[in-house]
């Protein structure tokens, strides 16, 4: 299905976002902007203790406060679980700071806050365990009966014969790395509006990456049928892997609404943003790798300990994601993976941008960089020697029908001037390389990974595309319009993309695991092909040619090679509708990975970071990032660049700045000011090299770009810092004090 680049008329150009004008004029509606008649404001009461027994909950004073319309406690939330075993509102024990205990809805935010304060909860404080390594000891407090020694989930995988492989290696390296808790920190704080005033029917407005999964989760928890839950996602102010599952506040808002008989809005207030959904927890990586003296990597062993916090919700996905990564970049035949989610009285870990993989690559990328040096090889050489190529099948069965990893490494190295810089820079200046890959899709995580699409074409020649993929900023609506426009031979601005209402959205698993461009893109393509076929039937009759000779391009329809016989697209549509048959043009399509598990494509990339380290303060300045990424095909190059930029920022931010400083299970810096992220001053120059391998399975050859780059950024910067300082900084973020310690 791959089309040569010159044959495309729409794909590959820089089209403006369809929703751009609304966004720059303040017209775009976000959940906090929703105002419903009679709407109430909810406030959640949370445990201040990391571990305690709930002795009593007295809501009488709150209920008596004028303006309070509903109060809910554990009795109202019976049977509702967040994830596998976390009670929405526990009856007996709270297990982390911030654990929800009760909630109240009132006429205004101030009254709700005052009422929340009046809810008296008596606690009996219990011993806590806040450190993973302590939690694994026999004498540690056990958080859950079923989790022996506080291991909530364990994944062990062996591929080939790692022990024998190590025995045959000439060079072996071991190392330990740490990444620290972090938070997604989107611009839009967590918020939802629930309207559960009609019996058995819930409508909810909330930013999300997956309306489908939210719908199912809410339905299951509230004992409704899926179709009785309507998700309206409007615009989502950033996802970054943090809005992929329902959170307690979604359920609490729904319950409050049902009880009060009015819509209820709950919004994170200040530091509560860090509690409503806590992103990555601490992870310890023990790595061991072996190579033969010809420089070939043979075997990797990884033992990962994740501080999963007090409950396992959906964190177990991270062991699947990271285990896959062992053999993603290098064609090794032997590997061993052990991943354990450990319970502590910290907040339940969730995902940060990078999904656990980027953070893993901070460790693995540095570790293998070290191995390269042990072998006496330049890291670029090592990576070129070992990197996977097209046609490879990974240890767990993913097949790389397209792979531009080596091309990315070569191009990034050339553009950055690697050869002239590596080993030749003055002290405290460094250059480092990081490589990465990311799956385009979620098959294997779910039974199906389906996206569906409908398109209707009006007799003015304009199309309306219905999809179920939320646009959280990644410009997916525009990307779909471009794909559809290419198929129909019109332009993206002829499209209206309708999405964000589960009542009318076709099925779509959602915008995460980087499945959007690939899956929904293919679904869109299929739907538009279906519509095109209907139009082709009309045009074929009119032009007296076979339908498969027709070309749809530049708003015209003509037999291939005979553009002088063209009929305007609009006219073909009109004639179809106004024919005797009166056939309306409607296309439908869907896409699901045909594999039993595993996605159909991976994006690949290589990044080279150039940094300067201030030896007096340990502050790292990223001077330049050279980014090469194989995206299959850049549907909209400007968007691809924007994705790369945003991920360079996010990767750099996590690598150097971001950390939730924890004390006693509590985040000490829960604010935009103290939770550090770089801003305009700190951003480096970024060189973009878009590599197009034209994947045979992606829409017009496109693959993901939503999370591949960030996987490369963290190891690139880490390796550059190691180059500058002469020593690896093995803990992320590489804050000034950690870098300074490595220097001194």
């Amino acid at each position, binding site marked *: 299905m791959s089309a040569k680049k010159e044959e495309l008329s729409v794909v590959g150009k*820089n089209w*403006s*976002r369809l*929703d*751009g*004008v*609304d*966004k*720059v*004029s*303040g*017209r*775009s*509606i*976000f959940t*906090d*902007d929703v*105002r419903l008649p009679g709407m109430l404001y909810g406030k959640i009461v949370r445990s201040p203790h990391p571990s305690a027994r709930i002795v009593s909950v007295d809501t009488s004073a709150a209920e008596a406060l004028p303006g309070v319309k509903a109060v809910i406690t554990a009795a109202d939330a019976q049977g509702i679980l967040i994830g596998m075993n976390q009670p929405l509102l526990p009856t007996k024990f709270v297990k982390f700071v911030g654990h929800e205990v009760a909630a109240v809805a009132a006429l205004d935010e101030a009254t709700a806050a005052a009422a929340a304060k009046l809810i008296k909860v008596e606690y009996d404080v219990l011993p806590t365990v806040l450190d993973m390594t302590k939690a694994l000891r026999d004498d540690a407090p056990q958080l859950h009966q079923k989790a022996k020694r506080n291991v909530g989930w364990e994944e062990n995988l062996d591929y080939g014969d790692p022990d024998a492989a190590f025995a045959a290696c000439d060079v072996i390296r071991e190392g330990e790395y740490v990444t620290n808790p972090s938070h*997604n*920190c*989107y*611009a*839009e*704080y967590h918020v939802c509006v629930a309207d559960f005033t009609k019996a058995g029917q819930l409508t909810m407005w909330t930013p999300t990456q997956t309306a489908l999964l939210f719908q199912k989760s809410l339905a299951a928890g509230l004992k409704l049928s899926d179709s009785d839950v309507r998700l309206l996602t409007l*615009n*989502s*102010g*950033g996802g*970054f892997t943090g809005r992929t599952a329902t959170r307690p506040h979604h359920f609490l808002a729904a319950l409050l609404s049902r009880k009060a008989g009015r819509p209820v809005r709950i*919004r994170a*207030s*200040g530091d509560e943003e860090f509690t409503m959904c806590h992103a990555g927890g601490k992870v310890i990586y023990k790595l061991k790798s072996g190579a033969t003296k010809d420089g070939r990597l043979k075997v990797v062993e990884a033992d990962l300990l994740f501080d999963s916090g007090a409950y396992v919700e959906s964190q177990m996905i991270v062991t699947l994601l990271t285990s896959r990564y062992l053999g993603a970049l290098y064609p090794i035949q032997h590997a061993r993976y052990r991943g354990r989610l450990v319970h502590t009285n910290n907040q339940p870990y969730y995902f940060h941008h990078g999904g656990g993989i980027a953070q893993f690559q901070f460790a693995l990328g540095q570790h293998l960089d070290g191995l390269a040096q042990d072998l006496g090889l330049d890291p670029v050489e090592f990576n070129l020697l070992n990197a996977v190529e097209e046609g490879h099948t990974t240890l767990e069965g993913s097949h790389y029908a397209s792979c531009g990893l080596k091309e990315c490494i070569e191009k990034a190295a050339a553009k950055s001037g690697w050869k002239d810089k590596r080993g030749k820079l003055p002290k405290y200046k460094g250059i480092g390389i990081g490589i990465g890959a990311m799956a385009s899709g979620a098959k294997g995580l779910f039974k199906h990974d389906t996206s569906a699409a409908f398109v209707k074409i009006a007799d003015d020649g304009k199309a309306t595309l219905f999809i179920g993929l939320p646009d*959280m*900023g*990644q*410009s997916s609506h525009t990307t779909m319009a471009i794909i559809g426009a290419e198929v129909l031979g019109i332009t993206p601005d002829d499209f209206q993309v309708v999405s964000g209402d589960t009542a009318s959205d076709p099925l779509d698993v959602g915008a995460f695991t980087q499945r959007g461009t690939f899956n929904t893109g293919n679904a869109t393509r299929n739907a538009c092909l279906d519509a095109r076929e209907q139009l082709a039937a009309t045009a074929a009759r009119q032009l007296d040619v076979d339908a498969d000779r027709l070309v749809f391009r530049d708003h015209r329809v003509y037999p291939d090679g005979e553009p002088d016989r063209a009929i305007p697209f609009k006219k073909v549509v009109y004639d179809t509708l106004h024919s005797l048959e009166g056939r309306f043009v409607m296309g439908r399509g869907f896409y699901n990975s045909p594999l039993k598990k595993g996605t159909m494509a991976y994006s690949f990339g290589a990044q080279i970071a150039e940094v300067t380290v201030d030896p007096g303060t340990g502050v790292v300045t990223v001077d330049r990032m050279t980014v090469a990424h194989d995206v299959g095909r850049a549907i909209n190059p*400007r*968007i691809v*660049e*924007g994705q790369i*930029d*945003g*991920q*360079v*920022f*996010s990767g*750099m*931010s996590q690598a150097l700045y971001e950390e939730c400083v924890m004390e006693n299970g509590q985040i000490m810096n829960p*604010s*935009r*000011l103290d939770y550090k*992220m770089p*801003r*305009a*001053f700190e*951003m480096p120059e*970024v060189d973009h090299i878009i590599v197009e391998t034209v994947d045979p399975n992606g829409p017009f050859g496109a693959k993901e770009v939503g999370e591949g780059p960030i996987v490369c950024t963290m190891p690139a910067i880490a390796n550059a810092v190691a180059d500058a300082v002469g020593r690896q900084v093995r803990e992320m973020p590489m804050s000034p004090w950690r870098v300074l310690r490595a220097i001194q």
Partner: protein
Amino acid sequence: MHKQLIKLTVNGDTHELAVAPNQTLLDVLRNELGMTGTKRGCTAGSCGVCTVNGEAGEAICSCLTLAIEWDGRAVTTIEGVQEGSELHPVQQAFLEYGAVQCGFCTPGLIMTAKALLDVNTSPTEDEISEALAGAICRCTGHIKVKKAVRRAAEMLRERDAAAR
């Protein structure tokens, strides 16, 4: 705590409003006037999504200023940036340069950039970064935003030159 009547001019229109002393300008814009283009973020002056322009066109965090202090004064919000149905050069540049992704911080960034460019159409790189330092953009990482601001400056200089 009594409500007080104030006269607040927003984007050229004067409104008479009853406000409580503890209502911020952000509260009043969004809740009393229904102008939700200005967003609510950290409510502590560190994220910039609530940025509006004060009387001298300066960038202000509307979450950290009391509405009652604006009696008799004027403010400009994102809703007042367009020139009729024509986008302002800052808005055009943001679109052209892909500086808009999720859009939540966009109104705040545009007001911040506009404040800079209203008084200085030839800002240095540092001046651009400095102006933007008070605002967060998680999606773009500021990279395309800075380019958009540079381009907007260029467009404004061209417009000024043409007008002369």
